[in-house]
C-alpha cells in the first residue's frame, strides 16, 4: 500500500519542522517527506488541505481495562478511541485484574493488541507482585515479555525498604521505574485537594505535602540507586519546583502531567461533580498555572491522557464513593491544542509533549516523521471543533469533567504503520 498525504502542513517536533510538506508512505514506512521518491505511484491519496500532519500521538498512560474490567472497557473499544484521538502508541499501567505481574499475562495482552488498526501497546509491568508493595516481580522476564518500565499504578509502596530494593533491582538491569509520588498516609481517605473547596464541601483533603514528601523520598532513593525514574501525574507547583531543583543538582528524572491537571482545578468539583473525582486530586489555580508553564518550558516532559474508563454505575455515587478517573484518549489532542493556544506556544513545541518527548521516555524510536520511520501519523484539522459528548466519544468510558465542552482540533486520519486506523472523513 502506497499513500500520498498531500497539501498538509507538516509539523515534526523531533526535527523542529513546521512547513507545508507532503508525506509519502510505502510498506508501512515513510519513504519520502517533501518530494516523492522516484517512481512513487500511490494507491491512495489523502488530502490534508487545511490540516496538520504530525507524528501519531504517544500517550504514556492509558488504561485499556483488559484483562479483568471488560465491563468498563475492552481492548476493541479503547483502541477505537485511541485511533479516533490520533494516538498511535500508548503505555498501559499494570492495574488490570489480574495485575500485570506475570510474563504470561503481558504476552497475552501484547498478543491481543497486535492488530493493524490498533495502536502500539507498551505494557508497564508491576514493580511488586499484586502491586502489594511486598515482593518484587520478575522484572527481567517481564521485560522480555514486552514491559517497557515498572510501576505501581495508583498503589504506593508503603514500606520504604521494599521501595529502595525495588529501585536497586530495577537499576541493576537498567529498567526504568515509573511511579506516582503520593504519601499513602497523608492521602488516606482523601478525595480532594486539601483547600477551600474541600473545606466548604466537607470532603476529606489530600495536602500538597502528600506529593512533596513522596517526591523527596523518591529523589533520595534515585540518588542512592541510580535508577531511571519517571514521576507520574504531577499535581502541584511545589512538587514541580523540587524536580527542577533536583535536576539542577544533577539528578536525572523525568515527569508528566495529565490533561485534567493541565486544565482544571478543584473548583471543577462544583457541587459534588463526580466527574472531577480524579487521582491525584485536582489542585488549586496556582498549581495548575505552574504545571502549564512547566510543560511549556519542558520542565515537565510529557502530557498524558491518563485515560481511565469508568462505568456509569461507579461514577453515579456520592462524590467520595465514586471511582476516580476520566476518559481521555480522545481529548489528548484537543487539550494539547487548547493549552498551546492559551499559552501562545508554537505548535511544534506543544506537539513535542505528546510525540517526541514521550517517545524518549518510552525509549523507542518513534514519534517523528522522517524518512525510514514507521508511518504512525496523525492528520488533524486544527480549526474544526470537537464536541465532547457521550455520543461522540468512542471510548466505552463516557465520563470526563470536560463533558459538554467544545475544543479545537478534530482528527481527520490516523495511520498506524501505514494502515488507516481511523478515517475521519467517513466518521464525522
Amino acid at each position, binding site marked *: 500500500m502506497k499513500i500520498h498525504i498531500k497539501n498538509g502542513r507538516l509539523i515534526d517536533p523531533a526535527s523542529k519542522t513546521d512547513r507545508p510538506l507532503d508525506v509519502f508512505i510505502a510498506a508501512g514506512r515513510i519513504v519520502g517527506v517533501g518530494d516523492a521518491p522516484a517512481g512513487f505511484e500511490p494507491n491512495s491519496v489523502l488530502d490534508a488541505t487545511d490540516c496538520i500532519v504530525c507524528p501519531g500521538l504517544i500517550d504514556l498512560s492509558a488504561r485499556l481495562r483488559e484483562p479483568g474490567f471488560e465491563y468498563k472497557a475492552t481492548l476493541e473499544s479503547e483502541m477505537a478511541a485511541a485511533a479516533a484521538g490520533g494516538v498511535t502508541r500508548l503505555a498501559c499501567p499494570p492495574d488490570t485484574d489480574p495485575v500485570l505481574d506475570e510474563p504470561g499475562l503481558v504476552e497475552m495482552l501484547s498478543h491481543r493488541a497486535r492488530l493493524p488498526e490498533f495502536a502500539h501497546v507498551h505494557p508497564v509491568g508491576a514493580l511488586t507482585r499484586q502491586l502489594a508493595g511486598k515482593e518484587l516481580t520478575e522484572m527481567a522476564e517481564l521485560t522480555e515479555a514486552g514491559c517497557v518500565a515498572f510501576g505501581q499504578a495508583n498503589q504506593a509502596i508503603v514500606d520504604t525498604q521494599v521501595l529502595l530494593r525495588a529501585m536497586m533491582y530495577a537499576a541493576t538491569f537498567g529498567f526504568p521505574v515509573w511511579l506516582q509520588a503520593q504519601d499513602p498516609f497523608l492521602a488516606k481517605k482523601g478525595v480532594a485537594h*486539601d*483547600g*477551600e473547596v*474541600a*473545606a*466548604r*464541601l*466537607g*470532603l*476529606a*483533603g489530600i*495536602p500538597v505535602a502528600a506529593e512533596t514528601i513522596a517526591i523527596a523520598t523518591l529523589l533520595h532513593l534515585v540518588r542512592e540507586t541510580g535508577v531511571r525514574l519517571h514521576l507520574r501525574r504531577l499535581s502541584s507547583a511545589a512538587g514541580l519546583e523540587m524536580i527542577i531543583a533536583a535536576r539542577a543538582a544533577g539528578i536525572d528524572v523525568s515527569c508528566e502531567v495529565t490533561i485534567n491537571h493541565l486544565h482544571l482545578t478543584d473548583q471543577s468539583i*462544583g*457541587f*459534588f*461533580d*463526580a*466527574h472531577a473525582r480524579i487521582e491525584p486530586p485536582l489542585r488549586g489555580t496556582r498549581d495548575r498555572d505552574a504545571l502549564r508553564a512547566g510543560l511549556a518550558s519542558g520542565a515537565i516532559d510529557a502530557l498524558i491522557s491518563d485515560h481511565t474508563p469508568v462505568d*456509569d*454505575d461507579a461514577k*453515579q*455515587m*456520592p*462524590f*467520595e*464513593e465514586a471511582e476516580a478517573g476520566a476518559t481521555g484518549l480522545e481529548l489528548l489532542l484537543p487539550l494539547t491544542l487548547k493549552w498551546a493556544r492559551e499559552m501562545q506556544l508554537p505548535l511544534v513545541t506543544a506537539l513535542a509533549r505528546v510525540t517526541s518527548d514521550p517517545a524518549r521516555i518510552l525509549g523507542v524510536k518513534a514519534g517523528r516523521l522522517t524518512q525510514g520511520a514507521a508511518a504512525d501519523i496523525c492528520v488533524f484539522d486544527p480549526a474544526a471543533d470537537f464536541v465532547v459528548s*457521550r455520543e461522540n466519544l468512542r471510548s466505552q468510558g463516557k465520563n470526563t469533567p470536560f*463533558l*459538554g465542552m467544545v475544543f479545537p482540533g478534530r482528527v481527520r486520519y490516523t495511520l498506524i504503520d501505514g494502515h488507516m486506523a481511523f478515517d475521519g472523513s467517513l466518521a464525522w
Partner: protein
Amino acid sequence: MNFMAASGNPQLNKHGELNHLLTIEGLPREVLERILDTAAPFTEVAEREVKKVPLLRGKSVFNLFFENSTRTRTTFEIAAKRLSADVINLNINTSSANKGETLLDTADNLAAMQADMFVVRHASSGAPYLIARHMAATGRDHIHVVNAGDGRHAHPTQGLLDMYTIRHYKKDFSQLTVAIVGDVLHSRVARSQIHALTTLGVPEVRVIAPKTLLPTGIERLGVRVFNDMREGLRGVDVVMMLRLQNERMQGALLPSTQEYFKSYGLTPEKLALAKPDAIVMHPGPMNRGVEIDSAVADGGQAVILPQVTFGIAVRMAVMAMLAGN
C-alpha cells in the same frame, strides 16, 4: 443516562424558588428570612389542642436515613405529621463493605411509590445532591429533597433552626459576634451555621478549635479563627457548641477528653468572658463534661431545649414551602 450539570446550585428552580433544601450556601438572604418568617406561626401549632395543619395533607414524606439518627429523624417525622403528611421511615444501614442496592436504585424505587419528598441523611458528603440531580434528570422534579445531614458537608435545617433561635433571643443579626466551638473539621452543622450566619449579615463569625479539628482554608468561608478558647469567647453574643464524636475523643486528633475539656470545654468560668447576656447553643446530643460543663448546659444562658422546639417549626416551614398545598 445523563448527568445534570453539577456546576450549578440545583436547589432553586427557574423562578428562584426553593425546590430542594440541600445546603444553605448560595441561598439568598431573602429565602432564609422567608423560612424563618414562615416558621414563626408554626411554633403556635404545637400549643394547640389539635397540633395539626393540613398543608401537606395527602402528601407522602419518606425519611431516608442511611445513617443512624433518632433525634433528627423524629423531629422531621413530627414536623411532617403536624403538616398532615403521611410519613414513611426507612432506616437503611449501609456500610461501605455491604452496599447492595445503590443509592439511586433505592431512590428510584421509592419514587415509584409516589413519594412527594425525600428527607435524606447519608454518611457521604453530597449524597442528597446525587438524588436531587437524578430526579431532575429523570423528569421527576416534583419530588423534593431535604438534606437532613450529609457527611461533613451540610445540615441545613439545623443551621436554620439555630438562626431561628438566635433571632428569637437577639432579634437583630447585624450587631452580633458569634463563636462556633469544637470539631469544625468533621461538622456539617458548623458549615451550615457559618453559611447561614454570614448570609444573614452577622459581622463577626468566629470558629474556636485546636488546629487538628479545623479544615484547611476555613477562613476563606468568612470566619475568624481562634485556637485559644478564652480569647475567642471574649465579648461574644452567641456561643454555638459542637458535638465531639466519641471516636474522635482520643487518637491522632486529640489526646484525651480530659485535655479537650480543659482547653475547649465550655465552663461557667470561660462563659464569663462572653457578654453577660450571651446565649449558649448545642445541636445535641451533648457530651457533658467533654465539650460542655453541666453547670452551663443546665444554666440560665443555655437555650438548648428551645432549639429543639424551634427545630420542629423550622422543619415544618421548610417542608411547607417545598411541597405545601
